[in-house]
């Protein structure tokens, strides 16, 4: 059992948990993830490791499905059945020169740990945090404390620059020499944003988030096409060269269980939580 040490809501439907998992926390590096199975009947879902501190790790997620919905109800002192990690290859951090670390939406969760390690490796680190509006923006202070420069963008202009992270990136690329870029966010955002760096030939990493089961290279559920080859995101990634990734295939595979997810949430709502008076679990 894995103890929830802290639980908090960061934004609309966005939550953070600090979970005690020594074997994960002690080995976690930027870019890696963990797999959580919340309870005995639970599914295994991957979540990026957003930070680690002593024996605890932090995960940040948006409550959109059955498992994330359940996780969002957890309080300090609650427990999770299973946590395994850190999984996947760590980010390829080294001294590049000037790096840009971009987070989109809840993907911002992955950026402080990357920015921090990049900074420690001697890079000039520029952060870009993009969200739909100011209420969905997370970890601004944390990124501001780590990065040499930080840009905030919102789709509706309610905070920072009115527009997308991609526009800020484009401007930066025009103005100065950028040596490496990380982009973490929804697949469509990573696709669009990484297209910006393509003509400049700037090394660009994206962190892919396909559906996984074991997360250890055993099932192939997370296979993605990179440079025309099939790769397993769980062991070959999750970070890949953005300009080689087939995002359309990724997005299609992410939607494989859309109908089942609806059924699952429905089932959960009408039989699991007890909020509406029916107890079936």
């Amino acid at each position, binding site marked *: 059992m894995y103890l929830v040490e802290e639980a908090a809501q960061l934004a609309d439907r966005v939550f953070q948990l600090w979970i005690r998992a020594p074997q994960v926390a002690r080995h976690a590096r930027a870019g890696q993830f963990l797999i959580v199975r919340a309870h005995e009947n639970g599914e295994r879902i991957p979540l990026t490791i957003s930070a680690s501190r002593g024996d605890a790790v932090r995960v940040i997620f948006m409550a959109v499905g059955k498992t994330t919905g359940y996780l969002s109800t957890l309080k300090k002192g609650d427990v999770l059945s299973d946590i*395994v990690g850190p999984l996947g290859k760590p980010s390829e951090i080294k001294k590049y020169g000037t790096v840009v670390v971009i987070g989109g939406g809840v993907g911002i969760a992955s950026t402080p740990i990357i920015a921090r390690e990049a900074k420690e490796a001697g890079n000039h680190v520029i952060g870009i945090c993009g969200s739909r509006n100011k209420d969905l923006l997370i970890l601004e202070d944390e990124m501001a404390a780590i990065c040499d420069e930080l840009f905030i963008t919102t789709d509706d202009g309610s905070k920072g620059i009115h527009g997308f992270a991609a526009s800020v990136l484009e401007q930066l690329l025009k103005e100065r020499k950028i040596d490496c870029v990380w982009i973490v966010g929804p697949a469509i955002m990573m696709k669009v944003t990484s297209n910006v760096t393509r003509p400049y030939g700037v090394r660009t990493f994206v962190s892919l988030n396909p559906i996984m089961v074991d997360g250890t290279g055993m099932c192939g559920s997370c296979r993605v096409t990179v440079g025309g080859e099939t790769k397993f995101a769980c062991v070959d990634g999750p970070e890949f060269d953005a300009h080689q990734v087939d995002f359309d295939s990724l997005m299609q595979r992410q939607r*494989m269980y859309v109908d089942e997810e609806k059924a699952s949430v429905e089932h959960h709502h009408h039989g699991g939580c007890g909020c509406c008076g029916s107890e079936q679990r």
Partner: protein
Amino acid sequence: MTASRAVREVRDFNEVNRGISAENAVFEALRCLDCVRPTCVTGCPVGIDIPAFVQQVAAGDFAGAVATIKRDNMLPAICGRVCPQESQCEGACILGKNEKPVSIGALERFVADWEREHGMTLPGTAAPSGRRVAVVGSGPAGLTAAAELARFGHAVTVFESLHEAGGVLTYGIPNFRLPKEIVRAEIDQVKRLGVEIRLNHLVGRSVSPDELLSYDAVFLGTGAGLPYFMGIEGENLNGVYSANEFLTRVNLMHADCFPAFDTPVKRGCNVVVVGGGNVAMDAARVARRLGGEVTLVYRRREEDLPARAVEIENARAEGVHIVCCANPVRVVGEKNVQAVECVRMSMCELDESGRPKPSSIEESNFLIEADVFIEAIGQGPNPLLVSMLPQLDRAQRGNVVVDADGQTTLARVYAGGDVATGAATVIWAMGSAKKAAAAIDRILRKE
């Protein structure tokens, strides 16, 4: 194809083979000739004293029989179910020359089940040696190595990356062939020997190579968990699974009980499975239970099917259509699988394995309607840990190179089971693990 055979409509995951009664067990055991030079034992990869236990069954001493087995095999209820006895002990039985061999597997299973119902007893263990051994993986090889090493008196820690122990016994072999409560009961026995199993520990990630090598000795039983894909067009369409994924979703995650359990699986109205081994049969039979019409496509002839005869028979009886001499060349669909395009195969000269080498016949392509396509064409060793120990020599397919004792090219590190031999059977994994455990014990005692 055999038509007009009654199809057994199965929708549950209860065990298909119900075993034999005590009375029948005694009768069966009485058939044993108690040969002076028994050949059955030579056919057993873990060297169970088969004549002794069979004679004990004949005398009605079931407790004695199971104790005899457990001297050499801590997982008798599992082996009694999944061992290919027809090509091992029973295949070597003298009676088999003229009539049916003694049903050694059924007897092993019977006494193991009898013991589980009547209270399990533990074999003796040696005094604590003060030495620590790490075992990586809790499948058949890891469990066997762990049990042996614990009985030798060593402190054993098993690292398992999943949330349940058992490896392929848990995620791979379906309940209807190997009930999970039996797997759990036999794993409990291993734990009662003093073995500590740390779940959710992926060695190479949650446990660093240095931490692993800080033990006095290491046994790698990481299995063959990396699924091979055919590399054909359309393979990443929604609805295409490796057999590993399909079976894991159902066996480990209970997707058959979705949405009561959270993990979904595509049930499929028309399921195509490619492959001819036991894993392919398992996947096909699971797909049948999930309600699909199932076609299994195999590239060689029917007589070349590598699966056990009994599994092929069960698959057929449950309504799996087996199409031989055919091979998928393309998965057809836009987003989801709509059909599997196959080509007919002709058999040419024999290859190095003594089987005919199949080659595709031009313009013989045909479509099988499908919404789920499962590839069961084999597995290789999971490369993660092995790649983190660069001192380990590896053979062509990534298998860890070991000597006759299971010793790898890295001092104090041994390996057994599929990671060393390539994908094989549960009992071969156990046999190689047992040898490695004995070798580890020898080096630890010498020091």
